[in-house]
Each structure stands twice: as C-alpha cells, then as structure tokens.
C-alpha cells in the first residue's frame, strides 16, 4: 500500500524462533516494534486500570516493573459525567509530540508497547447487551454504547501500537446458546469487515490489528476465521496478530495440530491471551497450546490481597532430606519419588504476623526486584497491617518481577528443549491456586466492582468483608468516603479561603481538629496497647 516501497504498512514484526511440537505447540518468538522495547515471547503485558498499573506510578513502571507492554481499555477513558454530558472525552484531545496520544495521556513511557481494547479485563457484563451497531461498555459513570464507528475513530485518534477490534462478547461465565454464539460470530465478522476497510483500505493505518478469536466453539466461527485468513492472505498488513479469548481454540486454527492446513497463514501471527488465567498452571497450559503473550489479572488481585507470589520455573529442587526417602522404606509401593512431596504455595501472605520481624526479602528465591533488594517482609507486613498504600505498590513490583522471571525461565526451557519436563515438575510441585490472603484489601476501586446480578464473579470476595468491617466492599467504600468528607471539607475551606484571599487561620484551625489519620484498631484494647509497648496500663488505686 505504501508507494515508497520501503516500509510495510505496520511497524510490527514477529519472528517465531522455535515451535516446540513435542511440547504440544508452545512457541518461542520475538515481537518487535520500532522505537519500543523488544518482547521475547512467551511473555506478559501489564494490565492497566484507567491507564495505570494499579498502585504503580509511571516512573516506577519504567524503572521497576519489568514489563514491555501494557493493555488499556477504551471504556476507562470515555465516561460522561452528568454535568458534562456533551463534552468529548479529554483523552481524544491529548497533544502528543511522538504521535502516541494514548502513551502521552497516561504518562506511559514511550518505550512501552500499548495495546488498546474496548473492555477491561475481566469486563463487567452489561445488562444492556450489544447491538448490530456496537457494544455496551461500562465506564465510571455507567453503561454506555460504543458503536463500531466510534471505536474505530477512537483507535485512530489514540494510535496505540496494537488495537483489538470490537468483538460481540457476552462477558458472562456461562456458555452462550448456539443461537447467540452464531450471532456473535456473524456480528464480529461484520465488524471486522468494516474495520479492515476503515483502517487499511480508506486509511493507511500503522496500528497492528490483533483480531479477536471468539470464546465459542470452532464450528460456530469457522466462517469468520476463514475471512481473517483470506483477508490476511490478500494483504498481510491488515492483520498482525490474534486476540484469543479461549486458548482451546488454538488447536483448531493452528496447522501443526489441526488436520487441515486451512489457516496456515495465521500460524505465524502472535497470539495475545484475553483469557484471564487465574494462576500459573493455567498460563503453562495455554502456553503449551501456543499462546504467546498474556494479560494476567491475578497479578493485581494477588497484590491487593497482600500476597507475594513465590513460584519459580522450574520449581526448586526437592530438599535433600525429603520425606519420600524415608517413606520408601515404609511403603515399597511408592515408585514416584516426586509425588508425595508437600506442595509448595504459589504465594506467601505478607500480612501474616509471622513476618513482623523478618528481614528476609519478600520471597527467598533470589528475586532481584526493587522490593526484595531494598525492603524486607517486616516492612511490607507493617504497611499491609497499617493499610499504607506503599504495601500494595511494593507487592505489585515484586509480583510483576516474579512473573517476568517465570516467563524468562520458560523461554530458556523452550530454547533448550527442557520445557515439557519442567512444566510437568511445576504442575506436581505447586499448589493448584494462589492463596487468597487474609490481609485487608485496598478500598475496592469504585465502580469496577459494581454488582450486576447473579452471574457476576465478585471481585471482592464475601470472605473479605469480615476483615473490612460491616457489609461488602461497596458499603465499605461508602463508609470511608463519609469519613473523608470532613477532611475534604477542610481542604475545600482552605481553597476557598485562598481564593478569597482571606487568612487561612480558620482553615488551619479546623485542619488540626480533623487531623486523625489513624486511630488504633477497632479491636485494640488496653492490653494491645501495652503489649505493643505504647504505654503502660495503670492499676487504679483502690
């Protein structure tokens, strides 16, 4: 399409260095964008909320987070505040000297690859449903419709490195009826036609399109997939990758495992997982099916829960003195020497009082992250217990580092042919789930946690509520809000005060009264105070 003949229409390249057939289909690759960090795959991208990795400022993302890319959701940027219904979303007007408004608006370092999708991951299911014109999204001001046209305009304006076209998804946990599934495929097919035309026929977009592969059976979407394949065959620039919503679809579209070679030209495309795996076991499974890049909601979930992830790939060797060697004498029928080993946890609950005087790094497996090299468990435990925000920041940094090392080790194993064996050991050695953690969560970040009926998977598990006080996350949020308004009022006073140019004595007076950043625990009693060594209990004289 480009007439000068030297630049392909997209600046992205993806090389497959190795496909490990014997490992089921896991692949080793390298994704490159000019001017961005190179991404060796398999790998993961950071998952943002409203354009930020939760709790981590953009400078720390660049310095400490070990992620080369981030996923952002358009619905996080297009709310319509009631009083300003008619204003266009501010993000569309972001000036950007590097022509990357999405990076510029979010202060995301330009070295980091940005992926733009329509919905958050995981997305809240909309009661309004999608239409032929587009989808329903959930913003901080409520549900609203986004048409295919609006979405295409948004993508062209924001100019992410990678964009995922709209897909007709239900975001429900149950499988759609076959009638609904068929309509999902048809709509997505219609929408992708429009997408290709608007992006690459009428314009000459440099944005890399990662087309959705739907979470419905292959038989329901083969026509749509065929279109992708054909369009790509006639113009490779229109399709740079696949956004896969169900890893089990990969065998159907990969020529190595499927009987037909129908989709051979889709094989070399990078596959981005929008599957939200809930633990590293699921990551390994999807990776074995041929997934290349992951988005991992469990990272922030673990950090918010006070969990420091602690797994490594491969798992550490069994202790020299392992229980199996002693047990073999008792039970001769235990030939599998690695089976009876106690399972290792995938993460450690940092809020546990057992860490309160521990000067160890967060996890002992030689993690080199900022949190582990400059801080220790005792500090993180204290921060979580005092509900200081830095606790969650440090955990985010650590947890991202653990997963970065996990992927680096996987790539090494794929390169030297040891992946299958190491993955087997990993499955045997670690507990199936990441512990849920007993620490108090940060205040549920508002509207994303809105309840929307019986099918919703609760973000704030009910079990948490008893540690947060009465009610559920939402209630708690309200309560905190109430508490803060006094302080907010003080600040408002102060501002009005300043604007009117009068003395700030009044404000400062109120200020010191409202200065109650923390009171002792609800449950603290005199004995606690004494035990903690703050003061001594007084025996009243009789």
């Amino acid at each position, binding site marked *: 399409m480009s007439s000068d003949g030297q630049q392909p229409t997209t600046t992205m390249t993806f090389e497959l260095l190795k496909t490990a057939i014997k490992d089921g289909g896991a692949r080793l690759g390298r994704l490159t964008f000019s001017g961005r960090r190179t991404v060796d795959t398999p790998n993961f991208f950071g998952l943002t*909320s*409203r354009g930020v990795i*939760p709790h981590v*400022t*953009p*400078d*720390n993302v660049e310095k400490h987070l070990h992620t080369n890319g981030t996923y952002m959701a358009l619905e996080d*940027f297009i709310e319509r505040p009631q009083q*300003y219904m008619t204003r266009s979303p*501010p*993000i569309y*007007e*972001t000036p950007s000297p590097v022509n990357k408004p999405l990076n510029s*608006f979010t*202060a995301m370092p330009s070295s980091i690859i940005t992926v733009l999708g329509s919905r958050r991951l995981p997305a809240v299911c909309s009661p309004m449903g999608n239409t032929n014109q587009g989808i329903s999204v959930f913003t901080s001001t409520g549900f609203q419709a986004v048409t295919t046209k609006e979405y295409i305009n948004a993508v062209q304006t924001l100019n992410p490195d990678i964009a995922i076209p709209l897909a007709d998804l239900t975001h429900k946990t149950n499988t759609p009826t076959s009638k609904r599934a068929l309509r999902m495929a048809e709509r997505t097919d219609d929408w992708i036609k429009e997408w290709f035309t608007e992006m690459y026929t009428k314009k000459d977009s440099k944005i890399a399109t990662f087309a959705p592969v739907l979470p419905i059976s292959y038989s329901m979407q083969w026509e749509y997939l065929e279109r992708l394949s054909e369009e790509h065959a006639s113009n490779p620039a229109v399709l740079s990758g696949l956004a896969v919503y169900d890893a089990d679809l990969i065998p159907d579209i990969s020529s190595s495992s499927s009987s037909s070679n129908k989709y051979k030209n889709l094989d070399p495309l990078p596959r981005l997982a929008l599957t939200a795996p809930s633990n590293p076991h699921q990551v390994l499974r999807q990776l074995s099916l041929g997934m290349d890049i992951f988005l991992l909601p469990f990272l922030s979930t673990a950090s918010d829960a006070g969990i420091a992830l602690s797994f490594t790939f491969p798992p550490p060797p069994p202790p020299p003195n392992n229980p199996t060697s002693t047990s073999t004498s008792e039970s001769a029928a235990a030939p599998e020497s690695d089976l009876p080993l106690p399972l290792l946890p995938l993460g450690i609950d940092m809020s546990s009082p057992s860490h*309160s*005087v521990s*000067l160890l790094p967060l996890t002992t497996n030689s993690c080199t992250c900022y949190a582990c090299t*400059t801080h*220790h468990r*005792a*500090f993180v435990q*204290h*921060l979580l*217990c*005092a509900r*200081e*925000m*830095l606790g*969650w920041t440090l955990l985010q940094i650590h947890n991202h580092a653990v997963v970065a090392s996990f992927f680096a080790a996987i790539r090494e194993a794929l390169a030297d042919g040891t992946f299958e064996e190491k993955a087997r050991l990993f499955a045997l050695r670690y507990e199936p789930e990441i512990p849920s953690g007993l620490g108090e969560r*940060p205040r549920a*970040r508002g509207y994303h946690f809105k309840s929307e009926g019986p099918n919703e998977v609760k973000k704030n598990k009910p079990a948490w509520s008893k540690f947060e006080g009465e009610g559920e996350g939402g209630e708690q949020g309200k309560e905190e809000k109430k508490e*803060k308004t006094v302080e*907010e009022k003080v*600040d*408002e006073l*102060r501002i009005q005060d300043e604007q009117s*140019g009068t*003395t*700030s*004595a009044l404000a*400062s007076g109120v200020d*010191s009264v409202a200065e*109650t*950043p*923390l*009171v*002792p625990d*609800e449950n*603290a*009693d*005199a004995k*606690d105070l*004494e*035990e*903690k*060594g*703050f003061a001594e*209990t*007084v025996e009243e004289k009789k």
Partner: protein
Amino acid sequence: MPVATQASLKGITPEQLESTGCRLCLNNTYHLGLKPGQEVLDAVGGAHKLQGWKHNLLTDSGGFQMVSLLKLAKVTEEGVRFLSPHDGSPMLLTPEHSMSLQNSIGSDIMMQLDDVLVTTHPDKARMREAMERSVRWLDRCIKAHKHPDRQNLFCIIQGGLDLEMRRECCREMVARDTPGIAIGGLSGGEAKDDFCKVVATCTELLPELKPRYVMGIGYPEDLVVSTALGADMFDCVWPTRTARFGNAITKHGVLNMKKEQYAKDFGPIEDGCGCPCCRPVDQEGAIGVTRAFVHHNSAKETVAAHLLTIHNVWYQLHLMGGARDAIIADKFPAFVKEFFSNLYPDRKSYPSWAVNALKTVGIDLFES
C-alpha cells in the same frame, strides 16, 4: 519535613521520596508505637531499617496525638493518662516511656514529651502548669534518653499565647542545652497575628547555632513568614494529605485537579516546576504527567494521589530551598515579595497578619 506517619509517605517509595530532595522526614511515635510496636522495632533495628530510609528521621513524642486523638486524655505529673479507646481501661504515657519508644525507633531527632495545650486555652493557671510541667518533663526525658550520642533530643517551648510565659519557658529550656529547640502548641487555631508574635518572641531568645523547629506548620505562607521570623524547620501533613483529595500546591495557590476545568488541561501540574511529574519530558527522570491525567484518576486510582504527593512534597522542599538560596545570596526580602506576589495577584488581598509580621523584621511587602 514531609510526614510519613506510619513509616511510609502515602504510597511513594523511599526512593521516590529521596528524588524529591527530602533528607529529613517525620514519623509519628504514637502510630509506630502501636504498629508495628516497640518489640518489632527493637527486633528489626529501628525505623530507618524498617522503612529502608537512608536519611534522617524525626519523631514526635507521641503525646500530641494522645491528646488530640483521644479526647479522654488527662495529663498528670506522672504523664499522659488516657482511657484505652476500646475497653476504657486506664493507660499512661510517661516521659520515660516516650523516650524508650523513640530510642527503639532510633530517630535522628526526637522530641521531648510535653504537656500540650491549645494556645487558645482560656485557663491561665493551667497554661502555666503545662509550661512548667513541660520543663520538668524535659529533665526526665534527658535522664531517660539512652542514646544522647546518636539521637538528638529537642525540647519544646510551651506557654500558649502569653509572651512572658514563652520567654520564661525559653530561658528554662535553653539552660538545659538540648541540641535543638522546638516551638510547640501552635497550629491550634490561634489568630495568625498571635502565632507570629509567639514565633518572633521565641526566636529572639534562642541561641543562634541551634535549629529552631516550629511544630505542625505547613502552609506555604506560614513557612515563608516563620522563616523570616527566624525559624529553621517545619513539619506538616497537609501537603501529602491534600494530595489525596486531588489538590496541587503551586506558587499561585492550591489547585483542585478534580475540577472540570482541568479535564482537558494538558499542561504540567505546575508550569516551571522541576519535580519528576512536571519537569519537561525530555529531561532525566521526567514522568510527563498532565493535569488532565491527574484529573482523570483523582479519587479513582491511587496513582493520582502518589503523583500529587511527589509534586507537593517537591514544592514545599523547593520553596525552602529557594529561601535558603535567597538568604545566602542576601536577597531574602526580594524572595518573600516574589512569593507573595505570585500567591496573590492583587496586593490588596495580601493577608494582613503576614504583612504586619514581615514588617517587624524589616520586610515591607508593599515597597517595590
């Protein structure tokens, strides 16, 4: 000094705090005494080690929080008596206990336990009692202080708004030769004129070569005027706390980033500010934050508060840095004038307390 109440400055890392130029920050003894508690502090090896802070720490005595947080606190000669917030059983914080806690914390500057009263307290006799008791408590603190070789104990001047009582207290305290001296009891709602008189009265009597610390002071104009009156150091939670409500401190006043007018404002939080958030993006360590982005995430993602915290702390430290430079260059009056003209576009709205206080030290805000 920014205030890291519970050994953490509102979500920013010690590394980021360092990058704002901060070399001394405050921890609250009351909070650290409860969480993580003295036993943990001893086991970990103090608060520096706990929070990974390579620079200086100052701790208060814990008494002020007692009195202000727990309404039922009662001060006796022995110490601060209060009822446990939960079960109502009586508790006691003594000067000795406060010292022991601060020794465990290992702060570079520690404060004596004092008998704090709001300066507007109407009872003169009680005010005198509090002042004299604070002197007696200083003696007990000095005696109980285990590490005078490596921790600096500051005394605290009390005496409310009674200047004669303040003078008397100054003489008594100075005679005890602590490494530094604090002026306490202010920021409690007294008129600004009275505040300035107290600061000026005390600084006049204090020795030249000891740092003078006005406690709990933090609005920019308070810092500048108090500096003019001869004070050296200050602390306030306001810059970090106000950040959490979306407020940015700038030389033109406080701006609330939540306001709609900033939704499409793609300028830095403050033009010309050198903090990591605001400095031009082509400079080392620049984050490239816009007002629009802070607006977008105010009250929605903690990161917005972290960014404003970095900016606000930088602003306050930079303001004091500017004052130091001006003093060295012998241009302090010009610095003060510029500060007020930036803050108040109309001279007529200059606060009279500041105008009057500055006049007493020979700075005339209206002279051009």
